[in-house]
């Protein structure tokens, strides 16, 4: 273990040293594209870490401190009713999508209906006040964008919850082994610390994975590609949905990016903002780690389609 850590340190030092070498290898490693890739990857990680910490603190707290009966009573007993309540409850978790995955995982482990937890996972990054305020700031004088985003995101999260109720199977959710609930052998604080730490390291690793993927797309795909897709209605919508997945921008900032895509229709930009917080490379990586890869892919695909449809319908109605 120390050997591996030492090896990683050596690699990083090499990167620093090689930057000064005027050799061919040096040229490759100091290529501005490679440096830009590093910058983008690092910035995604740095931006997300505070929110990941928030999410894992909460998930650790839910795991260790919240008594079971409180959780059981906080949602309606019937799962079909718990879904919309969970969707609206997403407004209480501010911040980007990195926080919602650990929290949802923890809720499921503590016995909350998985449909409601999944609805919460989807709605929290999209309907919280921080994100809605950012959207209002990015589209000044156009409150219908904020309202449309809220509506489409809430609808998507609830539909996904109900779909899971109807079609989902428990064995699709592969939660890694974990002692659920409180242990008599360990104190509450030890339980909190250990589950917080475990979730944090687990999610942090997957965050780096997602960041690397997003950085690779960022550096290899030129922005001029965007303009080719702006014209046709349907291609624009699908294209922006895919772009949202690939760029993996935090939900507080995607409104500003959407606002800058002036060549695209308002509906296409709405779809960008609805899909982004629910499906992106970071999230797929995080969900794979928390719920298993098969689940993550199925869930992401279904969510993309649902979000696209809800976005288009809402945009057609309101925008």
């Amino acid at each position, binding site marked *: 273990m120390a050997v*591996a850590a030492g090896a990683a340190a050596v690699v990083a030092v090499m990167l620093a040293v090689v930057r000064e070498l005027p050799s061919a290898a040096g040229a490759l490693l100091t290529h501005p594209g490679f440096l830009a890739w*590093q910058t983008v990857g690092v910035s995604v990680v740095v931006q997300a870490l505070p929110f990941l910490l928030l999410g894992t*603190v909460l998930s650790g707290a839910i795991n260790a401190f919240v008594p079971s009966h409180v959780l059981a009573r906080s949602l309606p007993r019937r799962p079909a009713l718990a879904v919309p309540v969970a969707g609206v409850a997403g407004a209480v978790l501010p911040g980007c999508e990195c926080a919602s995955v650990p929290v949802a995982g923890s809720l499921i482990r503590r016995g909350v209906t998985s449909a409601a937890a999944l609805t919460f996972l989807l709605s929290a990054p999209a309907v919280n006040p921080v994100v809605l305020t950012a959207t209002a700031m990015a589209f000044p004088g156009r409150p219908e964008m904020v309202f449309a985003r809220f509506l489409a995101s809430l609808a998507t999260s609830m539909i996904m919850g109900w779909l899971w109720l109807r079609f989902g199977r428990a064995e699709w959710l592969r939660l890694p082994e974990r002692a659920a609930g409180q242990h008599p052998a360990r104190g509450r604080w030890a339980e909190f*610390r250990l589950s917080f730490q475990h979730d944090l390291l687990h999610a942090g690793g997957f965050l780096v994975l997602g960041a690397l993927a997003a950085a690779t797309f960022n550096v290899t795909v030129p*922005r001029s590609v965007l303009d080719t897709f702006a014209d046709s209605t349907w291609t624009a919508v699908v294209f922006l949905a895919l772009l949202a997945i690939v*760029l993996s921008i935090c939900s507080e900032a995607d409104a500003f990016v959407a606002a800058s895509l002036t060549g695209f229709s308002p509906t296409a930009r709405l779809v960008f903002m609805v899909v982004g917080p629910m499906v992106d490379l970071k999230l797929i990586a995080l969900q794979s780690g928390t719920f298993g890869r098969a689940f993550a892919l199925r869930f992401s695909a279904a969510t993309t389609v649902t979000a696209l449809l809800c976005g288009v319908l809402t945009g057609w109605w309101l925008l």
Partner: protein
Amino acid sequence: MQALVLLLTGAALLHISLFTDLYLRYVKEDLRPLLIISAATLTLLGTVAAALDGFPFTKPQAMTVQTADTGHGNDQRQGHAHDHTRAPRVAWLLFAPALLLLLAAPPPLGAYTAARDSRDGGGADTAGPGEDTPPFGPLPDESPARLSLTEFHLRARQQEGRTLRSHPVRMTGLVTPSGDPRSWDLARIVIACCAADSRTVTVRMNGAPTPPADTWVTVTGTLRDNPAGGPRDNRPTLNVSSLRPTPAPPNPYMDSAPPAGSSTAG
């Protein structure tokens, strides 16, 4: 090992947010308090882990918590089923950004990104969300007027740059190759959240030899009346009267006017 990862990540965040300004290369200024808090939390957690679990290797746990009733049919690690002392293997990846930030912090986005962003001639989106911008008043009295690139862009778009006509302006930006050897661009990279969502604002420069790419300069000049290039390229162009190198600003992604009192040598 868990303690090591936590401590290194905490140290890296402290390094870039508290002890230096390096965080500005990656995220916005207002994230700083959150970064410092996160760094403190990570360091605290790492210290506690080191003290209680052993450092650098975790002490063998005398108690392993077993709960046989949680059915895990698809669990392949039955041997140490609920032993939290083994770190998730994916956590190793966290070493990479932590060590990179501590030892060889990646540089801010520069001419490479700026040139790729605006290769297509800068279209409408390089001006930012300016569709609803209220009309600009006349430029302030000072000559040359100090502007940010964004403001210059927006003014140049409004009524064909009426407020800019024949009025010298001064701007600071990054030298970026434009794909045309006879000219170059002055660019500013702007971010909304982190360096992953960057946009570039560019103004074409005309009439001055190309400075080294990726350097910061302050230019003085006037808006060129007829935009250069073919019909596709409607980027505003500046006829440069003077330019001088400038130190790189601490926050490379904030598009602002050059400070008062900056004079151009000749």
